[in-house]
């Protein structure tokens, strides 16, 4: 029962262009969504988040969009840089999971080519 799905295992983008990473979730009770970034041999690090009362949150080059009716969120990175090459995890939380339990997707590996 995969509640958070990232259907693209990998994505390759040219430096300077936009990277769009997608995520779908199955349970409408999730009310807080996060993106984490992971480099090899390191733990995931928090990148950006969005509450279900919003449909967009922007932080520098990173913007997260939430479409609640479609149970879909996306992370936009623009412009993409080679240092953005990493695995990106979509994650979700909600009171139905106790509020504290973060459920992660399988991740999308982003390659940004110089």
């Amino acid at each position: 029962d995969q509640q958070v799905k990232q259907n693209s295992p990998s994505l390759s983008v040219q430096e300077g262009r936009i990277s769009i990473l997608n995520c779908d979730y199955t349970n409408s009770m999730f009310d807080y969504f996060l993106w984490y970034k992971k480099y090899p041999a390191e733990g995931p690090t928090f990148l950006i988040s969005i509450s279900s009362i919003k449909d967009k949150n922007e932080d520098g080059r990173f913007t997260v969009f939430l479409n609640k009716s479609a149970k879909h969120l996306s992370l936009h990175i623009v412009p993409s840089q080679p240092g953005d090459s990493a695995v990106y995890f979509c994650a979700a939380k909600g009171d139905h999971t106790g509020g504290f339990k973060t459920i992660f997707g399988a991740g999308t590996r982003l390659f940004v080519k110089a």
Partner: protein
Amino acid sequence: GAGVSQTPSNKVTEKGKYVELRCDPISGHTALYWYRQSLGQGPEFLIYFQGTGAADDSGLPNDRFFAVRPEGSVSTLKIQRTERGDSAVYLCASSLTHANTGELFFGEGSRLTVL
């Protein structure tokens, strides 16, 4: 230290052996979590501590897995009678609060290989 510290970073053991993995969270973080990440998968929730008590251990796969946090800081994940399927990276995370908006701060993980 400044971040979440996990030891050992790598552990190779034989099937049937006992293993302990240690996590030292960020000072002042009351919430501590253990996750397990298998190859090609995202982190999978194992257990959550608020203070000294395990508030939710529903993610522990079976009774061979146990975790403690006796003084509300350092936590130890214990795996008895290890099996090859236990091979994974075990991630520890802490957060300032267990509230819905609390982001997790992860350690670098302990990679367990069971031969």
